[in-house]
């Protein structure tokens, strides 16, 4: 099978095949933990870490795994790395761990990771797999960061906790609520489609 170049991988992962905006995968964390830039960043990094590590692992063992049990094996590997990520986050910052809560464990069922393992890492050598995983992870991080920035800016008037819009800004709390998450993501999808159409 022909390997895509690194540049091609990045362009696809970040933009033309962005896992969130185009493939509509991993929507749960994008909606749930994007109410501040800090949370979004932590979630994006943790997911990318698991994505890259599992891609490497899956690609290494791809010749030894019989097709009938491959999904079970992938899930096991992913769950192990998620548990590791959770311990790492807790050891680095209790605050971040508290803010993300059960959503760290839920990275296991983020379809981006299983999808990447199934469709790419299990069919390609380690290096291209890692590059592909990294670009998809960046695409996910980009999307969740955009959500986090919009929601924190409009919902609290701040970015990363620093007040940006000044004292007189009346926060639109709705953007921090679950409903606001749906609205912002819907809006981002519309913007993306509009841009794609004009580019064409």
């Amino acid at each position, binding site marked *: 099978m022909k390997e895509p170049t690194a540049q091609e991988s990045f362009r696809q992962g970040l933009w033309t095949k962005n896992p969130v905006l185009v493939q509509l995968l991993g929507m749960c964390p994008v909606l749930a933990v994007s109410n501040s830039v800090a949370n979004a960043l932590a979630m994006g990094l943790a997911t990318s870490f698991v994505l890259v590590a599992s891609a490497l692992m899956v690609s290494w063992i791809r010749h030894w795994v*019989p097709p009938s049990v491959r999904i079970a094996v992938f899930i096991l590997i992913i769950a192990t790395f998620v548990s590791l990520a959770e311990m790492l986050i807790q050891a680095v910052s209790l605050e971040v761990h508290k803010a993300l809560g059960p959503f760290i464990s839920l990275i296991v069922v983020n379809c981006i990771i299983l999808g990447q393992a199934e469709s790419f890492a299990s069919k390609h050598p380690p290096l291209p797999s890692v590059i592909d995983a990294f670009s998809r992870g960046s695409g996910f991080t980009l999307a969740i960061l955009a959500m986090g920035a919009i929601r924190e800016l409009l919902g609290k008037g701040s970015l990363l906790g620093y007040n940006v819009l000044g004292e007189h800004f009346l926060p639109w709390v709705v953007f*921090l609520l679950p409903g606001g998450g749906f609205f912002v993501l819907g809006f981002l999808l519309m913007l993306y489609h509009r841009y794609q159409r004009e580019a064409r």
Partner: protein
Amino acid sequence: MVALLVGLTTLCGLLLLLAHAWSAPIIQQKQEAALRSALVRVLPQAKTFATWTEQGGQLVPPLATGKDLRLFEGLDNQGQRVGWVIEAQGAGYQEPIRLLFGLDVQGQQLNGFEVLDSKETPGLGDRIEKDPSFLANFKALDLSQPIRLVKPGHKTKPSQIEGITGATVSSQAVAHIIQRALASRLPLVKQ
């Protein structure tokens, strides 16, 4: 095939146990440091804290693995008791709220408060953690009468807690958690 699955599971399990052995002490140390700084904020007069828990109406030292709610006895440099910090927990809007509050030596007045753990709605319910006028309730809350939650702007007595507009459920939850904790903890403190 089965051997592969079993082998892989064992390998993953071992890896996790190793990682746990490395990270557990660091995490525990961080948790203790965080608890300690919260205790000092709630009861600034105290220099050290003795940890207790309740069993059958008596104060006993907590078990190492226990998940019971704790009482912290605040002591000054001479080992004199200067107050109490009570750990309390109860249902919030979505997830449980865990908090600390400080009492004077006789249990007459509540004069410190801190939320340890909560997932209240950002922008609304989470104001129980930082809204200055809500927190002002807990600088000197009179405990000689039963405490009550009142609507914002209706506080007339020092035993009343003034709620937050737009965070009714969360402020009710806090008042309720404190009421319940006081009912079981005050007799112990007064002993």
